[in-house]
């Protein structure tokens, strides 16, 4: 789960990190009220993607009147496929210097990496590319976290020795997001040193591991509903599916991310375009298949559906039953091609045939078939 800026900042504040005063506004009137209370503010679109500044999602407002106008423009705006649900009105900081601080998972090292740079604020990725040595790095022990001397060393290596104490203290607090909240990314960029000498989080990015959602139900309850995205993705999430919307018109269901991705590749190769990625995972049950079909059929662009299941842990008979039940319950009339193979495939194929669905043999054949069926001019 990628938290919105204001949510991430609330979490940082709960860990003891200083954040600028700010208010959430769902309407232009609320934004005006926030400005009246806080004085000049930045009105910031709340979306779980980067690049909102360039997209016009951040505006400065000196008066409540300006705040209202800015919020009017920003709320409801589309930023990289996300409809802005609300804005965050935040007091501008008097910036002395900007630092980069971030934790993430370095999958090649199979460890968490902590990165600190005196050149925060600007494009940190550019800094990383042009002068990688200007970013100090630490792989903290995952059982005990970073030790004091390690942090001290890190801060000096980043050329921030004169700020060793306050920065080490912020790092320790931010690190808590890893063991306590299962953060896979926790980033403060910029970490601002104000003219008054305070260390304040200027922006915040926090991503919580979906696999650990069961340990953090409060976060999900508190923030999960606010993050608006694609309506099909939202519905899929409610139903516990791994689903990503794409631009085409052929619905795809597969089991396993690799198989599902290669199914998209095959559909494209056959001349079609996938409407989505939907991985029903290992051990998929009848109910899961039904949920997946339901979400895919919500999308009016979808002209046909390709189901590609090659089972190991997923049992063919259960998948077949699910497909038949789902098709019947949803009164699906669109072309449906099912490629079913693997554990209990014969039982599964028999169930499909009985229900009038001819199972495909290879994934490539099945991909060509669904493209052909959805391209056919005659109504079916």
């Amino acid at each position, binding site marked *: 789960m990628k938290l919105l800026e204001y949510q991430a900042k609330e979490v940082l504040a709960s860990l003891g990190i200083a954040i600028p005063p700010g208010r959430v506004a769902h309407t232009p009137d609320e934004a005006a009220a926030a400005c009246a209370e806080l004085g000049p503010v930045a009105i910031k679109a709340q979306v779980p993607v980067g690049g909102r500044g360039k997209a016009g999602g951040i505006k400065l407002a000196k008066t409540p009147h300006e705040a209202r106008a800015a919020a009017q423009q920003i709320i409801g705006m589309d930023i990289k496929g996300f409809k802005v649900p609300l804005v965050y009105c935040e007091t501008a900081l008097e910036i002395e210097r900007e630092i980069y601080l971030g934790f993430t*998972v370095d*999958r*090649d090292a*199979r*460890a*968490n990496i902590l990165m600190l740079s005196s050149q925060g604020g600007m494009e940190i*990725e550019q800094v990383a590319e042009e002068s990688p040595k200007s970013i100090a790095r630490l792989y903290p*022990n*995952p*059982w005990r976290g970073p030790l004091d001397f390690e942090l001290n060393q890190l801060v000096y290596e980043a050329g921030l020795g004169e700020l060793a104490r306050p920065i080490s203290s912020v790092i320790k607090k931010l690190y808590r997001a*890893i*063991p306590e909240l*299962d953060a*896979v990314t926790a980033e403060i960029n910029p970490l601002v040193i104000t003219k008054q000498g305070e260390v304040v989080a200027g922006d915040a990015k926090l991503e919580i*591991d*979906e*696999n*650990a959602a*069961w*340990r953090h139900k409060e976060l999900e309850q508190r923030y999960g509903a606010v993050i608006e995205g694609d309506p099909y993705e939202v519905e899929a999430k409610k139903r516990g599916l*791994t689903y*990503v919307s*794409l631009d085409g018109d052929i619905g795809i269901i*597969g*089991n*396993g*991310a*690799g*198989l*599902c*991705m*290669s199914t*998209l*590749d*095959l559909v*494209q*190769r056959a001349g079609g375009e*996938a409407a989505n*990625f939907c*991985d029903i*995972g*290992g*051990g998929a049950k009848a109910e899961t298949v039904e949920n997946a079909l339901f979400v895919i059929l919500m999308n009016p662009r979808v002209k046909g559906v390709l189901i590609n*299941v*090659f*089972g*190991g*842990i997923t049992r063919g008979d259960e998948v077949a039953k699910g497909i038949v039940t789902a098709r019947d319950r949803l009164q699906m009339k669109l072309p449906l091609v099912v490629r079913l*193979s*693997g*554990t209990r495939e014969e039982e599964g194929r028999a169930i499909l045939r009985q229900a009038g669905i001819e199972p495909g043999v*290879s*994934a*490539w054949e099945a991909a060509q078939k669904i493209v052909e069926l959805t391209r056919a001019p005659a109504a079916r």
Partner: protein
Amino acid sequence: MSILIDAGTRVIVQGITGREGTFHTEQMRETGTNVVGGTSPGKGGTTHVGVPVFNTVAEAVRATDANASGIFVPPPFAPDAIMEAAANGIPLIVCITEGIPIQDMIRVKDFLRGYPKARLLGANCPGLITPGVAKIGIIPQRITSPGHVGLVSRSGTLTYEVGSALTAAGMGQSTIVGIGGDPVLGLTFRDVVEMFEHDPETTHLVVIGEIGGSDEERAAEMLAKGSRLKTVAFISGRTAPEGKRMGHAGAIISGNRGTAKSKEEAFKAAGVAVAETTDDIVGLLRSA
């Protein structure tokens, strides 16, 4: 010959009394695997699907001299199960469990540094099979046949797809290894490719990767230094939009590395044939 498992492998199943544990223990035994026991706390002393059940891995190892473990316990308990196996001297630990939190796996990986003899396969993997001899995990025996092609894959279902195509084409396999799709894993492509390189029975190799991380690139770098294996690689996810999360946390594109293009280019640079679709793999392998 084969890699990692053979007729001498004595397997215990952690979580043997669960639904998946039960089903797959039966399947493993049907393929001829020597399943010597299982664990399920509180059920020690009983027998389940024909094998003795123990309360702990320590008890199971004492009684059976097991040298491999298959883990079928739910995500909240799987990290502890992996560490329990390693701490009790099990040299091959295969974790099938899907959905283990990344931070738990990072701690497990750190713990395993203290047990250099323990090799972890997975988690979130289909396991491995030496066709006609033994398997740990969930790869259906039916799609396999004994032979000389080594197969290593990040994706479970694509492993079945390709294994089945090889078998249908009469190209048997020495060992099929699914390393799993999670971002933080045990054995890597590079580790497994190196084992195949040293296995005299393996003459051909198929590597099935996917977008995300740079394990494929690392394996390609090793193959570029010189390999006796005739190798074909396939990467899934070439049409996946950048930055969109595709199910596995593993399938995240980061920087210049990790894209399908970067991986395919790395293999091509190593002189490895790159298949456009899984259906092309058999043909390329024949002409390699």
